[in-house]
């Protein structure tokens, strides 16, 4: 009887010159079956989409200088360039307004409102957030993550595909998925971060036998 198995796939460093779907086919195509789910790291999808910038390319606004001061040091938005990069995508007034609303919501003990409104703030990784040579870049979240997942399914013939944001702090979120996937369930499967750390260069994970095990349940 087949068991659920997580298979990390090693790749070279992928860049904006790569197509993530073709890269998956190249490195994992032969290992992907019709009962499997293909998971791909969101930062790598964003990098292949060219959704990166550098602090040197940004001119911080006063809104970014102001707001970053109120974000705890661990967050990507705590740096002035992290905050500015979110403003470049979402607009400085939207991010500013989201922050004010988030602060008001905190008074009423509701967390996460800022990041719910400003998705760019939620998805952006500041410098050091990804592996070299992108450790000196700010990496935005992926664009059209659902469409990317659909393309992966069409190209690989897999049961499903997801674009996931997973880290070693036991946090996993599915940012985009193909039709029929349950993002919360996939996130639970990925919670132990099978993508590993940056140095392992395994941005693709195959969840083997997912379909048959789902049917058994």
């Amino acid at each position, binding site marked *: 009887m087949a068991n659920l198995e997580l298979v990390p796939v090693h790749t070279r460093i992928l860049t904006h010159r790569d197509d993530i779907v073709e890269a998956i086919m190249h490195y994992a195509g032969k290992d992907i079956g019709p009962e499997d789910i293909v998971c791909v790291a969101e930062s790598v999808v964003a990098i292949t989409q060219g959704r990166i910038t550098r602090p040197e390319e940004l001119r911080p606004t006063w809104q970014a200088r102001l707001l*970053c*001061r109120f974000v705890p*040091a661990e967050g990507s938005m*705590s740096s002035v*360039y992290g905050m500015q990069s979110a403003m470049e995508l979402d607009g400085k007034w939207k991010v500013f307004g989201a922050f004010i609303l988030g602060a008001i919501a905190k008074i009423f003990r509701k967390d996460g409102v800022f990041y719910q409104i400003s998705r760019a703030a939620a998805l952006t990784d500041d410098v050091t957030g990804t592996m070299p040579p992108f450790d000196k870049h700010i990496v935005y979240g992926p664009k059209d993550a659902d469409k990317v997942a659909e393309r992966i399914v069409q190209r690989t013939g897999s049961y499903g595909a997801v674009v996931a944001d997973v880290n070693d702090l036991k946090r996993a979120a599915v940012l985009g998925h193909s039709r029929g996937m349950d993002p919360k369930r996939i996130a639970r499967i990925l919670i132990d971060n099978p993508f590993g750390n940056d140095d392992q260069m395994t941005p693709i994970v195959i969840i083997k036998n997912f379909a048959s095990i789902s049917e058994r349940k």
Partner: protein
Amino acid sequence: MDMYFYTLVNIIVTIVFIVAVLFVAFRIFAWKQGNEEIVMLPKRRTQFEVEDISFNQVTLVSDIPFVNKGRQNGTIMDLYPRHLLPQEQFDQVSITSWTTDASEERHDGYWKSVIIEPRKGGTVRLRLILNAKTGNIRKDLVGFPDMNIDIVYQVVGRSDWHISKNRLILTAEELQHAMRQ
């Protein structure tokens, strides 16, 4: 009409006053919160030692501590050495210099961005590779002068990115001492 005019002026003055107060309050908050302040400590570096030597080449190594003296996280985005030995001063060796984070050594000269928390630090490992131009490194190092080496680093944090540099000197005596070890 005058009444409306004075009311308008009062409103504008009040708004300007509130904005000014908020601005000053923010500046005080930012000042109290502080910034990162990453500094190299070249005076506390280790003496250059010979790590590897052959007939025509010698590799010297020195560890340079650094610390974040500020009150905020700072990220060293890039760090590299710049040795300063013009041919007018000494032209018998060619020099390559490179640095790495001593806690996570690399051998490609690439500085991997690293976050330094307040009041914490680390160590930069500096390597100098001196190549003899005539083929005999001991002979070609005779007369080697004091050489300045700048450690150049780019830091970013809550404030704008900036480039700093700290200087150390490989003295003629220190080189001679290392070569005798």
